[in-house]
């Protein structure tokens, strides 16, 4: 993924899914789309953001490093413009490619990457 110090940080979060956990079928994420999946119960679930570009998938913890809030203010509604995903709260702009914040109130910070794997059309949590 990014090679940042945040690689693997997601594993320490509550309800973090283990490697091999199924997320969804690949066909449930349209090309160019962002979807959210949650693991665990209650208010503090593990929120996983998955973005698809062609056959390429990117996944991050849905957690903006600016104010430690989810990137979306409404369920599954994400702001995608010009190769960036924007936080709905205060408009921090992250590169979809690697989760780097290149503009906004937490410029220089990163989204926490989560590895994915696709096996027989099913998206799963990856090993590394």
């Amino acid at each position, binding site marked *: 993924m990014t090679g940042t*110090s945040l690689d693997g940080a997601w594993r320490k979060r509550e309800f973090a899914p283990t490697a091999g956990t199924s997320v969804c079928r690949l066909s*449930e994420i349209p090309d160019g789309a962002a979807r959210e999946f949650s693991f665990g119960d209650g208010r503090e679930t593990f929120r996983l953001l998955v973005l698809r570009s062609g056959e390429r998938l990117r996944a991050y913890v849905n957690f903006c490093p600016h104010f430690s809030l989810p990137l979306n203010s409404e369920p*599954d509604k994400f702001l995608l*413009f*010009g190769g960036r995903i924007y*936080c709905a709260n*205060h408009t*921090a702009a992250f590169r979809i490619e690697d989760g780097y914040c290149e503009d906004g109130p937490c410029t*220089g910070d990163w989204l926490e990457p989560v590895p994915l794997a696709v096996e027989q059309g099913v998206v799963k949590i990856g090993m590394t």
Partner: protein
Amino acid sequence: MAMLESKATTATAPIVVKASAPDPRTHYRKFELGAFQFERDEYFVTISWPAKGARQQHRMSADAFLRALMRDVAWGFFYGLVNFDGMFGTRNLYGRVEFFGGRYNEAYHKASLSYVEQFDSPVAMETCKSMLRDWCNAGFDPFAAPAETGSTWAGPKNGDNIAAIERFRIATKRMPGLAGDSPLRDDLPVNRAFADVAQDEPEVNVEPGFEGKLHAFNLFKYLSRSDVTWNPSVTSVCRESLYCPTTEEYILPIIHGNDRVEWFIQLSDEIDWEVADKETGRPRARVLMKPGDVAAMPADIRHQGYATKRAMLLVWENARMDLPKLYETGKLKPYPVEF
């Protein structure tokens, strides 16, 4: 499989900013966002919007406009209403943003001279940033107090100050000074107004077994090295509880109409607050805060502060995302205490 959250979002269109060629006399560009038009000259910014089949014009001093615009950009449209003055401003809808002219001015709104238009936040943000880049002259820092940045904002276009308007803004994950978290500002000079503030850090002694598990820092020293005014930075994150201290000098460049209760704790010096009804702007109170004073600014007001000497203020925000709706629907009262 994981729980799937409703429907997917798709849209990766590039953002286009509508800007004119530089004006032949002033060399400033004009900007458009939806039906709003923005134009600056040597002293003023003129904002116009459609009303009653014509265009309603509103004028602000360019330095006041740029100071307000800088906060709106730095704070990502912030919480609730950011009134640039009694006429023009923005309202954060978290993903969308509303620009308004006259909407929260009782007289203009009643006379049907107000106008409101919504935009995707990233689109509006790019226009705002482009205005700042083009309209801030060399030497003008919209974050600085007037005594520090002077009148370089005035006159025809004279260079730019990208370094000031795009200065690195520090995001704190838990608390400054923790490993991997934001720095303690040791590389910044002590501001002229806080030359008497002690600069030593607290001594932390722990029982065996607690090494590396306790942390403390000198908040007054940290604030004395703030290089901006009226610009909160997070110094403590505990779930949705955010401590956002700041240093204040001159006038809060916006009239803030929060969409939640906001607590103020005066740490040093004095700030005089003017408090008005959020919807109409009708005066409601004046509050002079002195060191140690605590105030809860209700969710149904707008406020603007005045500080002659640079003052330290702790702003305590609740970042819960469902709060605006809870207040709007009346499920929460706009004030935290009933007397």
